[in-house]
Protein backbone atom coordinates (compact mmCIF):
# COMPACT_ATOMS: atom_id res chain seq x y z
CA UNK A 1 0.00 0.00 0.00
CA UNK A 2 2.80 2.42 0.74
CA UNK A 3 3.89 3.67 -2.62
CA UNK A 4 6.09 6.48 -1.38
CA UNK A 5 8.60 5.01 1.02
CA UNK A 6 10.81 2.06 1.64
CA UNK A 7 9.68 -0.43 4.21
CA UNK A 8 11.50 -0.08 7.51
CA UNK A 9 9.82 -3.08 9.10
CA UNK A 10 12.22 -5.48 10.83
CA UNK A 11 10.52 -8.43 12.50
CA UNK A 12 12.04 -9.03 15.91
CA UNK A 13 10.98 -12.60 16.68
CA UNK A 14 11.61 -15.82 14.84
CA UNK A 15 7.91 -16.24 14.17
CA UNK A 16 7.79 -12.71 12.83
CA UNK A 17 10.57 -13.47 10.34
CA UNK A 18 8.91 -16.76 9.39
CA UNK A 19 5.59 -15.04 8.63
CA UNK A 20 7.30 -12.13 6.89
CA UNK A 21 8.98 -14.47 4.42
CA UNK A 22 5.72 -16.19 3.59
CA UNK A 23 2.97 -13.56 3.73
CA UNK A 24 4.15 -10.11 4.84
CA UNK A 25 0.83 -8.92 6.23
CA UNK A 26 2.36 -7.56 9.46
CA UNK A 27 4.80 -5.61 7.29
CA UNK A 28 1.92 -4.11 5.32
CA UNK A 29 0.19 -3.10 8.55
CA UNK A 30 3.40 -1.67 9.99
CA UNK A 31 4.13 0.33 6.86
CA UNK A 32 0.53 1.58 6.59
CA UNK A 33 -0.34 2.39 10.16
CA UNK A 34 2.86 2.73 12.19
CA UNK A 35 5.74 4.08 10.14
CA UNK A 36 3.55 5.72 7.51
CA UNK A 37 4.53 9.40 7.24
CA UNK A 38 1.71 11.92 7.58
CA UNK A 39 1.90 15.70 7.21
CA UNK A 40 2.74 17.28 10.54
CA UNK A 41 0.06 19.97 10.34
CA UNK A 42 -3.14 17.92 10.09
CA UNK A 43 -6.07 19.25 12.11
CA UNK A 44 -9.14 17.55 13.57
CA UNK A 45 -11.03 17.79 10.27
CA UNK A 46 -8.67 15.03 9.18
CA UNK A 47 -9.78 12.60 11.87
CA UNK A 48 -13.09 11.68 10.28
CA UNK A 49 -11.64 9.03 8.00
CA UNK A 50 -10.72 7.00 11.05
CA UNK A 51 -14.10 7.70 12.64
CA UNK A 52 -15.85 6.51 9.48
CA UNK A 53 -13.92 3.22 9.51
CA UNK A 54 -14.97 2.72 13.10
CA UNK A 55 -18.62 3.47 12.32
CA UNK A 56 -18.64 0.98 9.46
CA UNK A 57 -17.37 -1.76 11.75
CA UNK A 58 -19.94 -0.78 14.36
CA UNK A 59 -22.83 -0.86 11.86
CA UNK A 60 -21.78 -4.31 10.66
CA UNK A 61 -21.46 -5.64 14.20
CA UNK A 62 -24.81 -4.35 15.44
CA UNK A 63 -26.47 -5.23 12.13
CA UNK A 64 -25.37 -8.85 12.15
CA UNK A 65 -26.67 -9.20 15.70
CA UNK A 66 -30.00 -7.52 14.88
CA UNK A 67 -30.42 -9.89 11.93
CA UNK A 68 -30.47 -12.79 14.41
CA UNK A 69 -33.76 -11.49 15.81
CA UNK A 70 -35.30 -9.81 12.82
CA UNK A 71 -37.92 -11.41 10.53
CA UNK A 72 -37.89 -10.17 6.93
CA UNK A 73 -41.57 -10.76 6.19
CA UNK A 74 -44.15 -8.05 5.80
CA UNK A 75 -46.48 -9.75 8.29
CA UNK A 76 -43.80 -10.16 10.94
CA UNK A 77 -41.19 -7.46 10.44
CA UNK A 78 -42.82 -4.69 12.46
CA UNK A 79 -43.51 -6.94 15.41
CA UNK A 80 -40.08 -8.52 15.29
CA UNK A 81 -38.53 -5.08 15.63
CA UNK A 82 -40.86 -4.39 18.58
CA UNK A 83 -39.64 -7.71 19.96
CA UNK A 84 -36.06 -6.53 19.62
CA UNK A 85 -37.03 -3.40 21.57
CA UNK A 86 -38.89 -5.18 24.37
CA UNK A 87 -37.99 -8.85 24.61
CA UNK A 88 -34.46 -9.37 23.33
CA UNK A 89 -31.86 -8.82 26.05
CA UNK A 90 -30.29 -5.43 25.42
CA UNK A 91 -32.10 -5.42 22.08
CA UNK A 92 -33.18 -1.80 22.55
CA UNK A 93 -29.53 -0.81 22.95
CA UNK A 94 -28.36 -2.71 19.90
CA UNK A 95 -31.15 -1.32 17.78
CA UNK A 96 -30.55 2.26 18.91
CA UNK A 97 -26.84 1.83 18.29
CA UNK A 98 -27.69 0.74 14.76
CA UNK A 99 -30.34 3.35 13.94
CA UNK A 100 -28.52 6.27 15.61
CA UNK A 101 -25.29 4.83 14.24
CA UNK A 102 -26.55 5.31 10.70
CA UNK A 103 -27.15 9.00 11.42
CA UNK A 104 -23.72 9.44 12.98
CA UNK A 105 -22.16 7.61 10.06
CA UNK A 106 -23.67 10.28 7.84
CA UNK A 107 -22.63 13.14 10.12
CA UNK A 108 -19.07 11.86 9.85
CA UNK A 109 -19.21 11.38 6.09
CA UNK A 110 -20.57 14.89 5.52
CA UNK A 111 -17.82 16.46 7.62
CA UNK A 112 -15.30 14.28 5.79
CA UNK A 113 -16.62 15.38 2.39
CA UNK A 114 -16.82 19.06 3.29
CA UNK A 115 -13.24 18.79 4.56
CA UNK A 116 -12.32 17.49 1.10
CA UNK A 117 -14.12 20.37 -0.63
CA UNK A 118 -12.54 22.97 1.67
CA UNK A 119 -8.95 21.78 1.39
CA UNK A 120 -9.20 20.78 -2.28
CA UNK A 121 -8.44 17.15 -1.51
CA UNK A 122 -9.90 16.10 -4.85
CA UNK A 123 -7.27 17.76 -7.01
CA UNK A 124 -4.54 15.90 -8.90
CA UNK A 125 -3.17 13.40 -8.10
CA UNK A 126 -6.12 12.41 -5.89
CA UNK A 127 -9.04 12.34 -8.35
CA UNK A 128 -9.51 8.57 -8.10
CA UNK A 129 -9.32 8.74 -4.34
CA UNK A 130 -12.12 11.29 -4.42
CA UNK A 131 -14.24 9.28 -6.87
CA UNK A 132 -13.87 6.15 -4.73
CA UNK A 133 -15.12 8.25 -1.82
CA UNK A 134 -18.15 9.33 -3.87
CA UNK A 135 -18.88 5.66 -4.65
CA UNK A 136 -18.76 4.82 -0.95
CA UNK A 137 -21.18 7.67 -0.32
CA UNK A 138 -23.59 6.31 -2.96
CA UNK A 139 -23.39 2.81 -1.47
CA UNK A 140 -24.01 4.25 2.00
CA UNK A 141 -27.12 6.00 0.77
CA UNK A 142 -28.43 2.82 -0.81
CA UNK A 143 -27.68 0.83 2.34
CA UNK A 144 -29.31 3.31 4.68
CA UNK A 145 -32.37 3.65 2.46
CA UNK A 146 -32.94 -0.11 2.38
CA UNK A 147 -32.22 -0.42 6.11
CA UNK A 148 -34.87 2.16 6.87
CA UNK A 149 -37.42 0.02 5.04
CA UNK A 150 -36.78 -3.01 7.27
CA UNK A 151 -38.73 -1.95 10.42
CA UNK A 152 -41.79 -1.78 8.12
CA UNK A 153 -43.30 1.33 9.63
CA UNK A 154 -45.34 3.89 7.71
CA UNK A 155 -42.25 5.94 6.79
CA UNK A 156 -40.44 2.77 5.76
CA UNK A 157 -43.22 1.82 3.40
CA UNK A 158 -43.91 5.21 1.90
CA UNK A 159 -40.26 6.17 1.70
CA UNK A 160 -39.70 2.99 -0.29
CA UNK A 161 -42.66 3.80 -2.51
CA UNK A 162 -41.46 7.30 -3.28
CA UNK A 163 -37.81 6.41 -3.81
CA UNK A 164 -38.45 3.41 -6.05
CA UNK A 165 -40.92 5.69 -7.84
CA UNK A 166 -37.90 7.71 -9.05
CA UNK A 167 -37.15 4.95 -11.50
CA UNK A 168 -40.61 5.01 -13.03
CA UNK A 169 -39.70 8.46 -14.37
CA UNK A 170 -37.28 6.94 -16.88
CA UNK A 171 -38.93 7.00 -20.32
CA UNK A 172 -40.08 3.68 -21.84
CA UNK A 173 -38.34 1.21 -19.49
CA UNK A 174 -39.10 3.06 -16.24
CA UNK A 175 -42.11 1.02 -15.13
CA UNK A 176 -40.32 -2.23 -15.90
CA UNK A 177 -37.31 -1.18 -13.83
CA UNK A 178 -39.52 -0.13 -10.94
CA UNK A 179 -41.32 -3.49 -10.96
CA UNK A 180 -37.96 -5.23 -11.10
CA UNK A 181 -36.88 -3.33 -8.00
CA UNK A 182 -39.98 -3.90 -5.89
CA UNK A 183 -41.00 -7.28 -7.31
CA UNK A 184 -44.64 -6.32 -7.78
CA UNK A 185 -46.99 -3.48 -8.71
CA UNK A 186 -46.63 -1.87 -5.30
CA UNK A 187 -44.13 -2.14 -2.46
CA UNK A 188 -44.82 -5.34 -0.52
CA UNK A 189 -43.35 -8.51 0.90
CA UNK A 190 -41.06 -9.24 -2.10
CA UNK A 191 -39.64 -5.73 -1.72
CA UNK A 192 -38.93 -6.24 1.96
CA UNK A 193 -37.17 -9.56 1.34
CA UNK A 194 -34.85 -8.32 -1.33
CA UNK A 195 -34.05 -5.13 0.57
CA UNK A 196 -33.03 -7.19 3.58
CA UNK A 197 -30.75 -9.33 1.45
CA UNK A 198 -29.15 -6.27 -0.14
CA UNK A 199 -28.96 -4.37 3.13
CA UNK A 200 -26.89 -7.24 4.47
CA UNK A 201 -24.67 -7.33 1.39
CA UNK A 202 -23.89 -3.69 0.66
CA UNK A 203 -21.93 -2.86 3.84
CA UNK A 204 -19.42 -5.52 2.88
CA UNK A 205 -19.14 -4.00 -0.56
CA UNK A 206 -18.54 -0.67 1.16
CA UNK A 207 -15.75 -2.30 3.15
CA UNK A 208 -14.20 -3.46 -0.12
CA UNK A 209 -14.30 0.01 -1.64
CA UNK A 210 -12.85 1.43 1.59
CA UNK A 211 -9.79 -0.78 1.05
CA UNK A 212 -9.38 0.68 -2.45
CA UNK A 213 -9.93 4.17 -1.04
CA UNK A 214 -7.13 3.73 1.51
CA UNK A 215 -4.90 2.14 -1.10
CA UNK A 216 -5.31 5.18 -3.34
CA UNK A 217 -4.71 7.40 -0.32
CA UNK A 218 -1.45 5.70 0.50
CA UNK A 219 -0.20 6.10 -3.03
CA UNK A 220 -0.76 9.87 -3.18
CA UNK A 221 -0.37 10.58 0.52
CA UNK A 222 -2.64 12.84 2.51
CA UNK A 223 -3.30 16.47 1.79
CA UNK A 224 -3.03 18.94 4.64
CA UNK A 225 -4.53 22.33 5.51
CA UNK A 226 -1.94 24.23 3.47
CA UNK A 227 -2.51 22.12 0.38
CA UNK A 228 1.27 22.06 -0.21
CA UNK A 229 2.66 18.63 -1.04
CA UNK A 230 5.14 17.02 1.34
CA UNK A 231 8.64 18.02 0.20
CA UNK A 232 11.07 16.90 2.89
CA UNK A 233 11.26 14.72 5.93
CA UNK A 234 10.63 17.65 8.30
CA UNK A 235 7.18 18.05 6.73
CA UNK A 236 5.95 14.74 8.14
CA UNK A 237 5.71 12.75 11.34
CA UNK A 238 5.21 9.00 11.64
CA UNK A 239 1.63 7.72 11.87
CA UNK A 240 2.24 6.22 15.28
CA UNK A 241 2.06 7.67 17.79
CA UNK A 242 1.05 11.04 16.31
CA UNK A 243 -1.92 10.10 14.13
CA UNK A 244 -3.03 7.18 16.27
CA UNK A 245 -3.39 9.41 19.31
CA UNK A 246 -5.11 12.22 17.51
CA UNK A 247 -7.52 9.84 15.73
CA UNK A 248 -8.15 7.98 18.95
CA UNK A 249 -8.94 11.15 20.86
CA UNK A 250 -11.34 12.35 18.15
CA UNK A 251 -13.06 8.94 18.11
CA UNK A 252 -13.61 9.02 21.86
CA UNK A 253 -15.16 12.50 21.73
CA UNK A 254 -17.32 11.46 18.78
CA UNK A 255 -18.44 8.31 20.61
CA UNK A 256 -19.36 10.35 23.71
CA UNK A 257 -21.74 12.47 21.64
CA UNK A 258 -23.00 9.32 19.93
CA UNK A 259 -23.65 7.72 23.34
CA UNK A 260 -25.54 10.79 24.50
CA UNK A 261 -27.92 10.41 21.57
CA UNK A 262 -28.33 6.66 22.10
CA UNK A 263 -29.15 6.94 25.77
CA UNK A 264 -31.03 10.23 26.02
CA UNK A 265 -32.56 11.11 22.66
CA UNK A 266 -32.51 7.92 20.56
CA UNK A 267 -35.47 8.97 18.43
CA UNK A 268 -34.50 12.60 17.99
CA UNK A 269 -33.33 11.95 14.43
CA UNK A 270 -36.16 9.56 13.59
CA UNK A 271 -39.77 10.11 12.67
CA UNK A 272 -42.88 9.40 14.75
CA UNK A 273 -44.75 7.85 11.82
CA UNK A 274 -42.35 4.93 11.81
CA UNK A 275 -43.87 3.74 15.07
CA UNK A 276 -47.02 2.99 13.09
CA UNK A 277 -47.04 -0.24 11.13
CA UNK A 278 -46.96 0.08 7.34
CA UNK A 279 -50.39 0.55 5.77
CA UNK A 280 -50.43 0.23 1.97
CA UNK A 281 -53.76 2.05 1.76
CA UNK A 282 -52.88 5.19 3.67
CA UNK A 283 -50.09 7.67 3.06
CA UNK A 284 -49.01 9.62 6.16
CA UNK A 285 -49.95 13.29 6.08
CA UNK A 286 -46.38 14.21 5.18
CA UNK A 287 -43.51 12.12 3.94
CA UNK A 288 -40.03 13.07 4.94
CA UNK A 289 -36.94 10.95 4.45
CA UNK A 290 -34.19 10.56 7.03
CA UNK A 291 -32.42 13.87 7.70
CA UNK A 292 -29.36 12.92 5.68
CA UNK A 293 -31.39 12.80 2.47
CA UNK A 294 -33.28 16.06 3.00
CA UNK A 295 -31.20 18.40 0.79
CA UNK A 296 -31.62 16.04 -2.16
CA UNK A 297 -35.29 15.62 -1.37
CA UNK A 298 -35.72 19.40 -1.50
CA UNK A 299 -33.98 19.49 -4.89
CA UNK A 300 -36.29 16.75 -6.16
CA UNK A 301 -39.37 18.68 -5.09
CA UNK A 302 -38.06 21.96 -6.50
CA UNK A 303 -39.02 20.94 -10.05
CA UNK A 304 -42.80 21.31 -10.26
CA UNK A 305 -42.92 22.40 -13.90
CA UNK A 306 -42.18 20.80 -17.27
CA UNK A 307 -38.89 21.81 -18.89
CA UNK A 308 -39.43 21.57 -22.64
CA UNK A 309 -39.99 17.90 -23.51
CA UNK A 310 -38.95 16.76 -20.01
CA UNK A 311 -41.90 16.45 -17.68
CA UNK A 312 -41.76 17.66 -14.11
CA UNK A 313 -41.34 14.18 -12.66
CA UNK A 314 -38.40 13.17 -14.83
CA UNK A 315 -36.98 16.67 -14.43
CA UNK A 316 -37.00 16.43 -10.63
CA UNK A 317 -35.36 13.02 -10.66
CA UNK A 318 -32.69 14.11 -13.15
CA UNK A 319 -31.88 17.27 -11.22
CA UNK A 320 -31.63 15.28 -7.99
CA UNK A 321 -29.33 12.58 -9.37
CA UNK A 322 -27.40 15.28 -11.20
CA UNK A 323 -26.63 16.99 -7.92
CA UNK A 324 -24.73 13.85 -6.87
CA UNK A 325 -23.09 13.38 -10.26
CA UNK A 326 -21.62 16.87 -9.85
CA UNK A 327 -19.63 15.61 -6.87
CA UNK A 328 -17.95 13.00 -9.05
CA UNK A 329 -16.68 15.59 -11.52
CA UNK A 330 -15.60 18.27 -9.05
CA UNK A 331 -11.90 17.56 -9.75
CA UNK A 332 -12.45 18.80 -13.29
CA UNK A 333 -14.83 21.64 -12.45
CA UNK A 334 -12.42 23.40 -10.11
CA UNK A 335 -9.90 25.18 -12.33
CA UNK A 336 -7.78 26.68 -9.57
CA UNK A 337 -4.15 25.58 -9.26
CA UNK A 338 -4.25 26.34 -5.53
CA UNK A 339 -5.49 23.43 -3.49
CA UNK A 340 -6.53 24.77 -0.10
CA UNK A 341 -9.25 27.33 0.65
CA UNK A 342 -6.85 28.82 3.21
CA UNK A 343 -5.08 30.64 0.38
CA UNK A 344 -8.22 31.31 -1.70
CA UNK A 345 -10.14 34.17 -0.09
CA UNK A 346 -13.05 34.10 -2.56
CA UNK A 347 -13.37 30.36 -2.66
CA UNK A 348 -13.43 30.32 1.13
CA UNK A 349 -16.39 32.71 1.11
CA UNK A 350 -18.27 30.72 -1.53
CA UNK A 351 -17.53 27.49 0.29
CA UNK A 352 -19.38 28.75 3.36
CA UNK A 353 -22.23 30.10 1.25
CA UNK A 354 -22.46 26.64 -0.29
CA UNK A 355 -22.66 25.05 3.17
CA UNK A 356 -25.40 27.51 4.09
CA UNK A 357 -27.23 26.63 0.87
CA UNK A 358 -27.10 22.90 1.60
CA UNK A 359 -28.31 23.44 5.17
CA UNK A 360 -31.12 25.63 3.88
CA UNK A 361 -32.11 22.94 1.37
CA UNK A 362 -32.14 20.40 4.18
CA UNK A 363 -34.44 22.61 6.21
CA UNK A 364 -36.78 23.18 3.26
CA UNK A 365 -36.79 19.44 2.55
CA UNK A 366 -38.42 18.82 5.92
CA UNK A 367 -41.19 21.39 5.31
CA UNK A 368 -44.48 20.74 3.57
CA UNK A 369 -44.40 21.54 -0.17
CA UNK A 370 -46.57 24.63 0.16
CA UNK A 371 -46.31 28.39 0.46
CA UNK A 372 -42.82 29.82 0.14
CA UNK A 373 -40.97 26.52 0.44
CA UNK A 374 -41.10 25.32 -3.20
CA UNK A 375 -39.64 28.67 -4.25
CA UNK A 376 -36.87 28.46 -1.66
CA UNK A 377 -36.12 24.91 -2.79
CA UNK A 378 -35.85 26.09 -6.39
CA UNK A 379 -33.52 28.96 -5.50
CA UNK A 380 -31.42 26.66 -3.35
CA UNK A 381 -31.17 24.09 -6.12
CA UNK A 382 -30.16 26.75 -8.65
CA UNK A 383 -27.44 27.99 -6.31
CA UNK A 384 -26.24 24.43 -5.71
CA UNK A 385 -25.79 23.92 -9.43
CA UNK A 386 -24.30 27.36 -9.96
CA UNK A 387 -21.72 26.69 -7.26
CA UNK A 388 -20.35 23.71 -9.14
CA UNK A 389 -20.94 24.73 -12.73
CA UNK A 390 -20.21 28.46 -12.62
CA UNK A 391 -18.48 29.52 -9.43
CA UNK A 392 -15.91 26.72 -9.22
CA UNK A 393 -14.68 27.00 -12.84
CA UNK A 394 -14.74 30.80 -13.02
CA UNK A 395 -13.22 31.46 -9.62
CA UNK A 396 -10.11 29.46 -10.47
CA UNK A 397 -9.49 31.77 -13.41
CA UNK A 398 -10.06 35.17 -11.82
CA UNK A 399 -9.17 34.77 -8.16
CA UNK A 400 -5.86 36.15 -6.81
CA UNK A 401 -4.60 33.70 -4.21
CA UNK A 402 -2.87 34.77 -1.02
CA UNK A 403 0.87 34.39 -0.68
CA UNK A 404 1.78 30.79 0.04
CA UNK A 405 4.62 29.47 2.16
CA UNK A 406 7.20 27.31 0.40
CA UNK A 407 6.62 24.20 2.46
CA UNK A 408 4.55 22.68 5.22
CA UNK A 409 7.43 23.21 7.65
CA UNK A 410 7.60 26.90 6.76
CA UNK A 411 3.84 27.26 7.22
CA UNK A 412 4.04 25.68 10.67
CA UNK A 413 7.00 27.87 11.61
CA UNK A 414 5.21 31.03 10.51
CA UNK A 415 2.18 30.09 12.55
CA UNK A 416 4.15 29.25 15.69
CA UNK A 417 6.52 32.15 15.17
CA UNK A 418 9.53 30.14 16.26
CA UNK A 419 11.35 26.85 16.32
CA UNK A 420 10.24 23.95 14.21
CA UNK A 421 11.26 21.35 16.78
CA UNK A 422 10.24 19.03 18.21
CA UNK A 423 8.41 18.20 15.05
CA UNK A 424 5.25 16.52 16.27
CA UNK A 425 4.38 18.45 19.37
CA UNK A 426 2.47 21.42 18.03
CA UNK A 427 1.25 19.80 14.89
CA UNK A 428 -0.46 16.55 15.46
CA UNK A 429 -1.39 14.56 12.39
CA UNK A 430 -3.55 11.63 11.42
CA UNK A 431 -4.54 9.49 8.50
CA UNK A 432 -7.12 8.07 6.15
CA UNK A 433 -8.31 11.63 5.53
Amino acid at each position, binding site marked *: MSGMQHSTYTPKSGIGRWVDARMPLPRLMYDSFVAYPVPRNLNYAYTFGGILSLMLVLQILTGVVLAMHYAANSDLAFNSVEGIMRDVNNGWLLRYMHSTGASFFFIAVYIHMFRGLYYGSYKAPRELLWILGCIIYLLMMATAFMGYVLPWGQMSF*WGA*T*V*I*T*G*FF*SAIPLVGDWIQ*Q*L*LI*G*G*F*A*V*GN*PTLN*RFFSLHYLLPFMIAGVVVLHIWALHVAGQTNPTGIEVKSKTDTVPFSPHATVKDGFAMIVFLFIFAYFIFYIPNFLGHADNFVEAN*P*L*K*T*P*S*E*IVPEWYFLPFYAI*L*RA*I*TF*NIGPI*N*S*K*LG*GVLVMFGSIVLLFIVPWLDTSKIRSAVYRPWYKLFFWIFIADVVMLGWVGAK*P*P*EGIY*PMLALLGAIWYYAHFLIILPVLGLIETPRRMPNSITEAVLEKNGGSAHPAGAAAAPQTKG
Partner: protein
Amino acid sequence: MSAHEAADETVDGNRRDFLYIATGMVGVVGAASVAWPFIDQMQPDASTLALAQVEVDVSSVQKGASLTVKWRGKPVVIRYRTDKELEEGKTVKLSDLKDPIARNANLPSDAPATDANRTVPKREAWLVMVEVCTHLGCIPLGEQGEFGGWFCPCHGSQYDTAGRIRKGPAPENMAIPKYEFTSETVVRVG
Protein backbone atom coordinates in the same frame (compact mmCIF):
# COMPACT_ATOMS: atom_id res chain seq x y z
CA MET B 1 12.27 -20.95 -22.70
CA SER B 2 13.74 -21.49 -26.10
CA ALA B 3 11.88 -24.77 -26.37
CA HIS B 4 8.61 -22.87 -26.01
CA GLU B 5 9.58 -20.32 -28.57
CA ALA B 6 10.47 -23.03 -30.97
CA ALA B 7 7.12 -24.68 -30.31
CA ASP B 8 5.33 -21.36 -30.94
CA GLU B 9 6.76 -21.11 -34.40
CA THR B 10 5.39 -24.46 -35.40
CA VAL B 11 1.94 -23.69 -34.01
CA ASP B 12 -0.80 -23.09 -36.54
CA GLY B 13 -1.85 -19.47 -35.91
CA ASN B 14 -5.27 -19.93 -37.46
CA ARG B 15 -6.10 -22.76 -35.15
CA ARG B 16 -5.19 -20.68 -32.08
CA ASP B 17 -7.21 -17.68 -33.32
CA PHE B 18 -10.14 -19.93 -33.89
CA LEU B 19 -9.90 -21.29 -30.35
CA TYR B 20 -9.65 -17.77 -28.91
CA ILE B 21 -12.71 -16.52 -30.75
CA ALA B 22 -14.76 -19.65 -30.19
CA THR B 23 -13.96 -19.70 -26.46
CA GLY B 24 -14.72 -16.02 -26.18
CA MET B 25 -18.05 -16.33 -27.95
CA VAL B 26 -19.23 -19.30 -25.96
CA GLY B 27 -18.11 -17.51 -22.79
CA VAL B 28 -20.12 -14.40 -23.59
CA VAL B 29 -23.25 -16.33 -24.54
CA GLY B 30 -22.84 -18.49 -21.43
CA ALA B 31 -22.39 -15.49 -19.14
CA ALA B 32 -25.44 -13.78 -20.62
CA SER B 33 -27.64 -16.83 -20.28
CA VAL B 34 -26.56 -17.30 -16.67
CA ALA B 35 -27.14 -13.61 -15.94
CA TRP B 36 -30.73 -13.67 -17.18
CA PRO B 37 -32.23 -15.89 -14.43
CA PHE B 38 -30.55 -13.64 -11.88
CA ILE B 39 -32.34 -10.61 -13.33
CA ASP B 40 -35.56 -12.40 -14.15
CA GLN B 41 -36.11 -13.63 -10.59
CA MET B 42 -36.50 -9.99 -9.55
CA GLN B 43 -39.67 -9.55 -11.63
CA PRO B 44 -43.12 -9.90 -10.04
CA ASP B 45 -43.65 -13.60 -9.33
CA ALA B 46 -46.59 -15.82 -10.27
CA SER B 47 -48.51 -15.20 -7.05
CA THR B 48 -48.26 -11.47 -7.58
CA LEU B 49 -49.36 -11.74 -11.18
CA ALA B 50 -52.14 -14.20 -10.40
CA LEU B 51 -55.33 -13.10 -12.05
CA ALA B 52 -56.28 -9.91 -10.34
CA GLN B 53 -59.97 -9.06 -10.51
CA VAL B 54 -62.12 -7.81 -7.71
CA GLU B 55 -65.90 -7.51 -7.61
CA VAL B 56 -67.24 -4.76 -5.41
CA ASP B 57 -70.77 -4.24 -4.16
CA VAL B 58 -71.38 -0.50 -4.33
CA SER B 59 -75.05 -0.52 -3.27
CA SER B 60 -74.18 1.20 0.01
CA VAL B 61 -72.32 4.10 -1.61
CA GLN B 62 -74.37 7.31 -1.48
CA LYS B 63 -73.83 10.39 -3.63
CA GLY B 64 -70.73 12.16 -2.33
CA ALA B 65 -69.30 9.06 -0.71
CA SER B 66 -66.57 6.72 -1.81
CA LEU B 67 -65.20 3.28 -1.22
CA THR B 68 -61.63 2.08 -1.49
CA VAL B 69 -60.67 -1.45 -2.46
CA LYS B 70 -57.29 -3.06 -2.89
CA TRP B 71 -56.44 -4.20 -6.40
CA ARG B 72 -52.98 -5.53 -7.31
CA GLY B 73 -51.66 -4.14 -4.03
CA LYS B 74 -52.89 -0.67 -4.89
CA PRO B 75 -55.94 1.21 -3.68
CA VAL B 76 -58.73 1.77 -6.17
CA VAL B 77 -61.24 4.43 -5.18
CA ILE B 78 -64.86 4.13 -6.31
CA ARG B 79 -66.50 7.50 -5.90
CA TYR B 80 -70.13 8.42 -6.51
CA ARG B 81 -69.56 12.04 -7.41
CA THR B 82 -71.90 14.85 -6.39
CA ASP B 83 -73.60 16.96 -9.05
CA LYS B 84 -71.32 19.83 -8.17
CA GLU B 85 -68.20 17.72 -8.63
CA LEU B 86 -69.51 16.44 -11.93
CA GLU B 87 -70.26 19.97 -13.07
CA GLU B 88 -66.79 21.17 -12.11
CA GLY B 89 -65.24 18.30 -13.99
CA LYS B 90 -67.20 19.11 -17.14
CA THR B 91 -66.53 22.85 -17.25
CA VAL B 92 -62.73 22.52 -17.37
CA LYS B 93 -61.28 23.36 -20.77
CA LEU B 94 -58.94 20.70 -22.21
CA SER B 95 -56.34 23.39 -22.81
CA ASP B 96 -56.19 24.03 -19.06
CA LEU B 97 -55.12 20.47 -18.36
CA LYS B 98 -51.52 19.55 -17.66
CA ASP B 99 -52.14 16.10 -19.12
CA PRO B 100 -54.77 16.18 -21.91
CA ILE B 101 -54.99 12.38 -22.26
CA ALA B 102 -57.76 10.40 -20.57
CA ARG B 103 -55.50 7.59 -19.20
CA ASN B 104 -58.52 5.36 -19.21
CA ALA B 105 -57.82 1.66 -19.78
CA ASN B 106 -61.36 1.25 -21.15
CA LEU B 107 -60.69 3.72 -24.00
CA PRO B 108 -58.10 4.08 -26.78
CA SER B 109 -54.77 5.34 -25.43
CA ASP B 110 -55.09 8.73 -27.11
CA ALA B 111 -58.61 9.62 -25.94
CA PRO B 112 -58.80 13.23 -24.70
CA ALA B 113 -59.24 13.81 -20.98
CA THR B 114 -62.80 15.08 -20.99
CA ASP B 115 -64.79 14.42 -17.84
CA ALA B 116 -66.88 11.76 -19.61
CA ASN B 117 -63.76 10.01 -20.85
CA ARG B 118 -62.60 9.55 -17.28
CA THR B 119 -65.59 7.26 -16.69
CA VAL B 120 -67.57 4.64 -18.60
CA PRO B 121 -70.73 5.48 -20.58
CA LYS B 122 -74.00 5.88 -18.63
CA ARG B 123 -72.15 5.88 -15.31
CA GLU B 124 -70.55 9.32 -15.58
CA ALA B 125 -71.20 10.07 -11.93
CA TRP B 126 -69.03 7.14 -10.89
CA LEU B 127 -65.29 7.66 -10.85
CA VAL B 128 -63.33 4.42 -10.56
CA MET B 129 -59.66 5.24 -10.32
CA VAL B 130 -56.32 3.87 -9.14
CA GLU B 131 -55.75 6.22 -6.23
CA VAL B 132 -52.02 6.46 -6.72
CA CYS B 133 -50.28 9.72 -7.42
CA THR B 134 -48.60 9.59 -10.82
CA HIS B 135 -45.61 11.41 -9.42
CA LEU B 136 -43.89 8.95 -7.11
CA GLY B 137 -46.72 6.72 -5.98
CA CYS B 138 -48.18 8.18 -2.77
CA ILE B 139 -51.90 7.97 -2.08
CA PRO B 140 -53.49 11.40 -2.45
CA LEU B 141 -56.12 12.55 0.03
CA GLY B 142 -59.64 12.85 -1.38
CA GLU B 143 -61.88 15.94 -1.37
CA GLN B 144 -58.95 18.22 -0.77
CA GLY B 145 -56.75 20.72 -2.52
CA GLU B 146 -57.39 23.78 -4.65
CA PHE B 147 -59.48 21.88 -7.19
CA GLY B 148 -61.71 20.05 -4.74
CA GLY B 149 -60.42 16.69 -5.92
CA TRP B 150 -57.27 15.08 -4.54
CA PHE B 151 -54.22 16.49 -2.87
CA CYS B 152 -51.00 14.49 -2.60
CA PRO B 153 -49.23 15.17 0.67
CA CYS B 154 -45.89 13.90 -0.58
CA HIS B 155 -44.85 16.64 -2.98
CA GLY B 156 -48.00 18.68 -3.31
CA SER B 157 -49.67 17.50 -6.53
CA GLN B 158 -53.28 18.67 -6.95
CA TYR B 159 -55.94 16.78 -8.87
CA ASP B 160 -59.45 17.88 -9.84
CA THR B 161 -62.78 16.13 -9.24
CA ALA B 162 -62.13 13.83 -12.20
CA GLY B 163 -58.68 12.88 -10.87
CA ARG B 164 -56.88 14.92 -13.51
CA ILE B 165 -53.55 16.50 -12.60
CA ARG B 166 -53.83 20.27 -12.40
CA LYS B 167 -50.83 21.46 -10.43
CA GLY B 168 -47.61 20.16 -8.90
CA PRO B 169 -44.92 17.72 -9.99
CA ALA B 170 -47.10 14.76 -11.07
CA PRO B 171 -47.01 14.35 -14.87
CA GLU B 172 -50.21 12.41 -15.59
CA ASN B 173 -53.85 12.08 -14.64
CA MET B 174 -54.48 9.26 -12.19
CA ALA B 175 -55.05 5.98 -14.01
CA ILE B 176 -58.50 4.56 -14.69
CA PRO B 177 -58.28 0.75 -14.54
CA LYS B 178 -60.29 -1.63 -16.69
CA TYR B 179 -63.70 -1.93 -15.03
CA GLU B 180 -67.30 -2.74 -15.75
CA PHE B 181 -70.63 -2.47 -13.99
CA THR B 182 -71.78 -6.10 -14.06
CA SER B 183 -75.11 -5.12 -12.52
CA GLU B 184 -76.77 -2.02 -11.05
CA THR B 185 -74.74 -2.36 -7.88
CA VAL B 186 -71.65 -4.41 -8.67
CA VAL B 187 -68.41 -3.16 -10.21
CA ARG B 188 -65.75 -5.54 -11.45
CA VAL B 189 -62.26 -4.05 -11.50
CA GLY B 190 -59.54 -5.63 -13.64
